[in-house]
C-alpha cells in the first residue's frame, strides 16, 4: 500500500562575487563574477545542468512516458528560474516538458529561497506571492502545497500556510517531533484546521541522497531491488513514503560513474513490481490519506545536519550579524520603491549566503566545505558585508534624493 512521494528541490543561489571594501560605492553588481571559480553563477549553472539537470530530466521524461503510474513533485526557487531564463532556456524547456505530462506537481516556496518567515512576515508573504505568480506564468500552475526554505518548519508556519489555503506543508520527519510515531503517515500540524503535514522519510531519502556512493556503508552498493524491498517492508505499517531530496543528487552530489542514473531509471520498475505500491504527487497523497495524529513543533526544525536546526545558517556571530543587517534594511528598502534596489536586497536574503558563513566543522572538510565556493566562511562574510554595505549606501542615496 505505501505511496511513494518523490519531491525534488531545485535551486541555485546567486553567489556574491569577491567584493572588496574598495568596491563599495563604486560597483553595484554583486553577482556577476566571471572568473573560473565557483563564484561564477553562470558557469556553475552550466556545469550542473550538464551533469545533472539535463540527463535527469531526460530520464524522468522517459519514465513518465513508460509508466502511467509514475508521478513526481518539484519545488523551484525563483532565483533558479531567473537564472535559467537568462542563461539556459533549454533547461527550462525540458522542465516544462515534464510538467506538461500532467503528472508533475510544482510546490510553493519563497521566490528568493530565503528564511524571511523568521525575520519579516510581510517580506515573506511578498516573496511567496512573487513565486506563485512566476509559477503561474512559467508553468501555468497554481501550487497547493507549501515548503519553506531548507524545510524550516514550526507550528506558526503551518498555521500561516493553513490560513493561506494550502492543502499541505512539508517538514523533516525528525525523530524528536515524531516520538514513537512513523513518518510514513499523513499528519496534521498542531492547531491546524484543514492543512495536512507530510514528513520526509529521512532514512530512505538519505540512502539515495547521501549514502548512495559511500563504499564504507554496509548496504553499498544500493540496488533498486534492495531499495524496493525496504519500501515493501513498510507495507502494512505506513501509507506514504516521502522521499525528499535536492535534485542535484542525480549527477552532481552522486556521480554518474557511481551508477545513480541507472538506479533512477530502474527505480519505478522495482517499486511497481509490488502490486500494492504506487506513486503519488504530494496533493494526491494528502487527498487520499487521512491525518493520523497531530504533530507539535514549537521550535524550528530543518532538514540540515545532525541538529536539524537553523544553526548552519545563523549559528555563529558573523551569520547572525549579517542576517540582522540585511533585514534591518527592510523599511528603508521599501521606501525607495526602486525595483533594482529591492531586487538586490532580496537576492541578498537567499539562505545560501549565510550557509557559506557556517564555521561548524569547517576544519573537518565535510559537506559544508564541499558546497562552499569561498575559501573560508570568513571570506564569504567579508564579500557579503561589503556588498550589503554598498546596498545600504544606495538606499540612503535614493532616499536623500527623494525627500
Amino acid at each position, binding site marked *: 500500500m505505501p505511496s511513494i512521494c518523490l519531491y525534488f528541490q531545485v535551486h541555485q543561489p546567486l553567489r556574491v562575487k569577491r567584493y*572588496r*571594501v*574598495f568596491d563599495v560605492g563604486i560597483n553595484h553588481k554583486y553577482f556577476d563574477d566571471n572568473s573560473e571559480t565557483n563564484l561564477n553563477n553562470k558557469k556553475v549553472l552550466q556545469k550542473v545542468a550538464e551533469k545533472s539537470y539535463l540527463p535527469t530530466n531526460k530520464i524522468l521524461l522517459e519514465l513518465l512516458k513508460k509508466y502511467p503510474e509514475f508521478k513526481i513533485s518539484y519545488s523551484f526557487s525563483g532565483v533558479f528560474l531567473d537564472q535559467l531564463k537568462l542563461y539556459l532556456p533549454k533547461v527550462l524547456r525540458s522542465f516544462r516538458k515534464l510538467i506538461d505530462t500532467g503528472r508533475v506537481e510544482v510546490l510553493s516556496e519563497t521566490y528568493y529561497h530565503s528564511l524571511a518567515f523568521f525575520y519579516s512576515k510581510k517580506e515573506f508573504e511578498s516573496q511567496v506571492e512573487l513565486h506563485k505568480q512566476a509559477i503561474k506564468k512559467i508553468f501555468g500552475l497554481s501550487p497547493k502545497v507549501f515548503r519553506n526554505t531548507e524545510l524550516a518548519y514550526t507550528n506558526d508556519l503551518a498555521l500561516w500556510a493553513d490560513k493561506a489555503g494550502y492543502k499541505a506543508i512539508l517538514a523533516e520527519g525528525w525523530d524528536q517531533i515524531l516520538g514513537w510515531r512513523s513518518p510514513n503517515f499523513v499528519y496534521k500540524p498542531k492547531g491546524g484546521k484543514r492543512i495536512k503535514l507530510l514528513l520526509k522519510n529521512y532514512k530512505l531519502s538519505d540512502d539515495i541522497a547521501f549514502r548512495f556512493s559511500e563504499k564504507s556503508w554496509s548496504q553499498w552498493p544500493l540496488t533498486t531491488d534492495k531499495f524496493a524491498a525496504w519500501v515493501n517492508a513498510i507495507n502494512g505499517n505506513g501509507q506514504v513514503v516521502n522521499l525528499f531530496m535536492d535534485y542535484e543528487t542525480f549527477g552532481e552530489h552522486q556521480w554518474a560513474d557511481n551508477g545513480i542514473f541507472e538506479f533512477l531509471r530502474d527505480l519505478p520498475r522495482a517499486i511497481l513490481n509490488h502490486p500494492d505500491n504506487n506513486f503519488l504527487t504530494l496533493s494526491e497523497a494528502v487527498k487520499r490519506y487521512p491525518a493520523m495524529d497531530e504533530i507539535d513543533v514549537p521550535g524550528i526544525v530543518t532538514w540540515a545536519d545532525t541538529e536539524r536546526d537553523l544553526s548552519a545558517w545563523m549559528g*555563529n*556571530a*558573523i551569520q*547572525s*550579524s549579517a542576517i540582522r543587517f540585511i533585514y534591518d534594511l527592510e523599511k528603508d528598502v521599501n521606501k525607495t520603491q526602486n525595483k533594482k534596489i529591492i531586487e538586490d536586497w532580496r537576492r541578498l536574503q537567499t539562505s545560501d549566503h549565510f550557509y557559506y558563513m557556517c*564555521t561548524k566543522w*569547517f*576544519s573537518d572538510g565535510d559537506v559544508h566545505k564541499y558546497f562552499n565556493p569561498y*575559501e*573560508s*566562511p*570568513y*571570506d564569504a*562574510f*567579508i564579500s557579503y*558585508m*561589503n556588498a550589503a554595505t554598498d546596498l545600504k549606501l544606495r538606499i540612503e542615496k535614493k532616499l536623500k534624493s527623494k525627500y
Partner: protein
Amino acid sequence: MLGWELPPYNSGGLGEACLGLARALSKNGVEVTFVLPQKVDLNYDFMRIVFADIGEDLKHLQNSYLSYRQWVESYGKDASSSPFDFISGALRYAENVSDIVKKYHSDIIHSHDWLTYPAAIAAKELSRKPMLAHIHSTEIDRTGGHYPNPIVYKIEKDGFENADKVLSVSKYTKNILIDDYAINPNKIDVIYNAIDKVSIGNLPPALTEMKNLGYKVVLFLGRITLMKGPEYFVRAAKRVLEFEKKTIFVVTGSGDMLERMITEATYSGILDKFIFTGFLRGEEKDRIMQAADLFVMPSVSEPFGIVPLEVISNRTPVILSRQCGVSEILNHVLKVDFWDIEEIANKIISVIRYRCLHDDLVNESGKELVNISWDKAAEKCIGIYNQFV
C-alpha cells in the same frame, strides 16, 4: 640532538622549536642529549645539554637567522669587528663533535638546520648511527630565492642527501626541498611545529590610552627581515588608513629591514600611525598580542611561522599569507597572498569594522589550537625514530 641555540639565548623560532620538541620527546620516553656549539648558562632538567665549544662570541651566534648575504651586508663593511663566519663556525662544530659522539651514546642523530649538518654528518660517520636532518628554514627562504649563498646551499643539500630521513616543518618547505634541492619526496616527512601554552590568561592591558581614544591596533610581530614581508605591511597600512583613520600599526621586533620600513612609512606620510616597540619577549610580548585587535603576517616565504599560534593563544585574530607553512594547519584565520596589498587591506578593514568577525575568528581558532601540540609532533617523531632503531 644537534642544535644551534636554545631559549633564552635564541634569535628566533629555531631555538623555541628545538626546545618544544626535545621537551615533548623526553616526556614521551626519549632520552635526549642536546648539543650546542657554545657554552651558555642553561638549566633544563629533562635533557642533558653538552657544548661543542667552537669558541665564538654568543652575540654573533645569535644572528644565524640572517641570510649569509644580509649578514655580510650588515657586518662586513665594519672593519673594526672581525666578522664571525658562520660557515667556518659550522665546520668547527663538525670538528669538535667527535669527542661528544665518543662520550655520549645515542641511537639517532637528529640535527636542526644547516649550521648543524656538517657536525651531524661527521657524527654519523663516526658512530654509524642513522641521521635525521630537520629543516626549519632554508637558504631559499632566507634570501627569498635571490642569490642564495652557494656554500650554505651546498651544506644544506649535503645534509639532506646524507640524512636517512629529512624532517620538514611544512608541506611548503617540503616542496622547496623537492623543487630547489632535488630531494626525493619519499625521504621527507612533515612534522609541524606547535606551542606549549594553548591559552594565556589575561595580562595587564597595554596601549590603553590609544584604545581608550577609540584606536584599533593592528600588529606586525617578528624579525623585520625580507622573508617576513614588512614592506607589504606598510603598503597595506596606507590603504587601510584611507578608510579607517583611527588605526594604529604596531611593529614589534627588530631586523635589517627596520630602517626601510620606517622610510617607507615616512614617504607614505603615515609614520604618525606607527609604533615601533623593538624586540619583546615573554610577558611583554603576550601583552602586546593581547592588546592588538588583529595580527598580520604577510610573510614572503615562511617554512612554518610559530607567531600566529602564539597570537591565537592570546585571543587575537590572525591574517596570514598563504606562503607560510603554518597556514596548512590553520583554518580559522584569514589567508592572503603576501603581494596582494588590496586584499590584505580589505581583510584588515573587515576585522576592524565587524566585531562579530573578530569574535568568531578568536573563538574558532582557539578551538583549533587545542589540536596542535608538541606531544603530537613528538609522537610522529618517535614513529620515525622507530623505523631506524
